């Protein structure tokens, strides 16, 4: 499967972009939900002079990435693994590719996005398996239903929020502390 690269750069504000970037990304991904899995990651990079942000999101279907493009690849801030709950194949491939991700990413820069909860009746992946995955890899699990438009937007906003934190744009909150917040509700 060919990998698909989608780069965007200009000086608009994040809030305006949050819908425009991730939504087409996610809606392009939906027709691929026929047993294939895909791995996408979104990065932000601060554009020095203008003080604005440009975002690049890369979409691929499998890891490891082809080594030829290594020097072109920007710093990756968040890796989001998308699992389709209706396809056991997607879960297996995600599990297989997790081995190719560097350990340092699991300190808060990985999250699992589970889509297809709208059809709980036809899910072939056990919820327990997914929760297990989240626990074993110490990463949060988000649920969404990408076939519903409103849910797409809401999920995109959530992912972008996480991305801001993982990229270090929120002072005082690091990716690691954030992921530990997400995983358990700490007692005082």
């Amino acid at each position, binding site marked *: 499967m060919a990998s698909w690269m989608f780069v965007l750069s200009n000086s608009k504000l994040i809030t305006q972009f949050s819908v425009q970037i991730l939504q087409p990304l996610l809606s392009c991904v939906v027709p691929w939900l026929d047993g294939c899995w895909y791995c996408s990651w979104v990065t932000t990079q601060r554009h020095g002079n203008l003080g604005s942000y440009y975002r690049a999101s890369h979409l691929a279907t499998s890891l490891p990435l082809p080594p030829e493009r290594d020097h072109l690849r920007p710093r990756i801030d968040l890796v989001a693994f998308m699992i389709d709950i209706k396809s056991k194949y997607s879960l297996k491939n995600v599990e297989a590719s997790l081995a190719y991700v560097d350990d340092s990413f699991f300190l808060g820069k990985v999250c699992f996005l589970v889509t297809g*909860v*709208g*059809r*709980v009746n036809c899910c072939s992946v056990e919820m327990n398996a997914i929760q297990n995955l989240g626990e074993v890899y110490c990463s*949060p699990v988000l649920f969404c239903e990408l076939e519903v438009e409103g849910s797409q937007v809401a999920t995109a906003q959530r992912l972008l*929020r*996480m991305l801001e*934190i993982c990229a270090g744009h929120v002072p005082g909150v690091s990716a690691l502390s954030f992921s530990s917040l997400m995983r*358990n509700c700490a007692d*005082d």
Partner: protein
Amino acid sequence: MQRRQSFKTQKQPLQVHCKNQTDLSAWRKGGRIDPEKNVQSNQSPNNQKNDSKQGSLEQALSYFEKVQDRVSLKKNSVLQKHLTTVESIALQSGLPPEAFDVLLNVALSGKLADTVNTRLLKSLLPASVIPETSVVSSVSWLCVSKCSGNIQLLFLRWLIAVFDFIDHKEQLHALYGFFFSFLQDEKMCPYVCHLLYLLTRKETGEYIQLYETEYHFISYSGMQSYLQALLSLYKLYCPELVTITLPGKMKTYFKNSEGPWKAGINTVRRRNQENSPVFQPLFLGTAQPQSRKRKWNIQLIIPVSSTNTNNLEEDEKKYRVDLYSMSESFRVEQLQTFSQLLQNIHHLEFPSQMGSVLTNPLLLHYMNCIKDESIYLRLYYWMGQTLQEECTWCSVDNNQGEEEFKDFLETVYKTECFLQEGFSSCEEFLYKSLPLWDGFCCRSQILRLVSWIPLSSFSEIKSHLYDPLAQFFFTSSLYFKCSVLECLKELLQNWLNWHVIHLDSESDSQVHSSNTTHSELLNVVAELIHFVGWISTLALRLENNPTFLLYFILDFYETACDMYLRYNLPLLIMPPAGVFYPALLSMDSVSLNQLCYIMYRYRTNLVAAKENELSKKETVQFRFSNQTYQEYNQYITAMVGCLWTSSVFQKDIHPQGLRMDDELLKKTAVQEFKNSFNIVYHPAMMGYAVLFLQQAWPDDTTFNFSLIKGKKWNWYLEYLYAHGLKGLKVFIESSINRVSQASHRKAGNVQV
């Protein structure tokens, strides 16, 4: 009364229309007398279409009446034609009551092949009501077993699906024993259980003894979920008979068996209401003749019988006297006013479709005061099943059903507000579906339902509610965070209100409240407050201290600070430093004012607790720990030092406070750092100081804040109070001792 009027005005056209339905001859003549209000310009072509349809239906019915054995569908085109006629009319507008007799007889007598019978049964969609006689005769066919097993099962499923459309159910109740005997059949058992569940009334319970052999059979044949449901209902009605303990957790008891007819029934209903807006089943008490009926309202309607209500009463009385000689029970359809409710409160018979209770305030009143567990049980099952089935993010096929689901959740919420307590089925639904929620669908309805989760001493709430909420909280927008905080504040209020009421009722009944449950309740409430403190601290950091968020957080603590005095709950939890200091140093006066008020209330509560302890008025079962007092003292020291004595950087003893050395402060290059946070120089108050200066020294254009001292300081305080800073006022008056009106200001903290 308004309600009566609408009933009257609806009644007349209703009768006209019904007359036509019951009068077969008028109908067969092909003339359909439309109700007066439905006079449209294109009436005649409609009539012609209706005529042709009815003509063909009539032909089909007469064919089926006379059909002989073993007509094969494939070879006989006449049969096919009539079958398709029946099916299409059923889908379009539903079948009239007369058709059911004929069609059921044909389907269940085994004359025709199974394929034909299946299609007939699947097309039995009622336009208005189903006459009971046809159902009774079909049950007799069932007993004779002329048709195949599959057809019998399909018939039972149909009966369950259209149960509410059957006009009377007296004879069906009389057939209870027959249905009971069908329990022995393994395949029919689940559906028969469901049917019996719908049919069982309180009076039936007394007759369980008659069916003892069968009863023993179902008790010992294993705990399938449908049997459990039936047994739990029996247990409610006659607890002495059912000796087995039933598991408390609810599962989905009855499989959803009404699939083939569900969509059809809804379509037919919708179509009929579009065509004749006048003909509507009666709502009880809620007169909404113009509203667009949606699926939920439809399910919640109590279907009205089609015959004249006067005859109905007499017939019922006759039947009852003959069959059971029970005291007459008051049919819920006739309940119109509150006084009627009071008169008939002891023999009120609840409808079998429990969902109709939700929109009926009279029945809700009844539910509130009568300790009939069966009603709660039935409502619990129905609500749990409905919520699970219609939940839109768990079943995405229901895309257009999202609006209806939202309305349904609104209805449930309003009912909970009316009853002032939460439904446990609702709570379980929330626990099951919150982890899968996307945070977007039906958001405000879900959050409002969260605020009605009942207070209980289970510790499930932590993992099922707090964890998913925290996940959403951290990744979502500012507005979502504020909504969650508001919902948690209402949750706390509902718990506290419940506690107060519970306490009153306990003291009335003179039951000694056990210490363990009391302390468990304290733990649950304390856990909630700690949770809110934790997420508030983090939210303030994530969102960079916005005033909007701080308002909601402080609103929560306004409820939490007064628990001892207002709600008689001996618990006092201070806000964490991550909430206190951002509020103290915030940039606007609203937060500061709120914080002052909250600290004042804390002080009042602590002082009252101390007095009670010292005077030993009541048996002291608690006392606030020294740590609480210490925490309060640290905060108050910081606050007074900040706002009044300009000494916060030295005096603040809180471990996460503002204490800083002079050398460090000098490095900031701020000239007058000592009084930079008092009520004149505080960034939140400086606006007021400027306005005050303009009024007091109108000619002076240099803003010389040091002019505000001595007498002018008092004027300044009055000025602030006059501008609505009441919280500041009560705080200063309670926590600050002023020695004299002289210029020397002395602050005294009242150490508690």
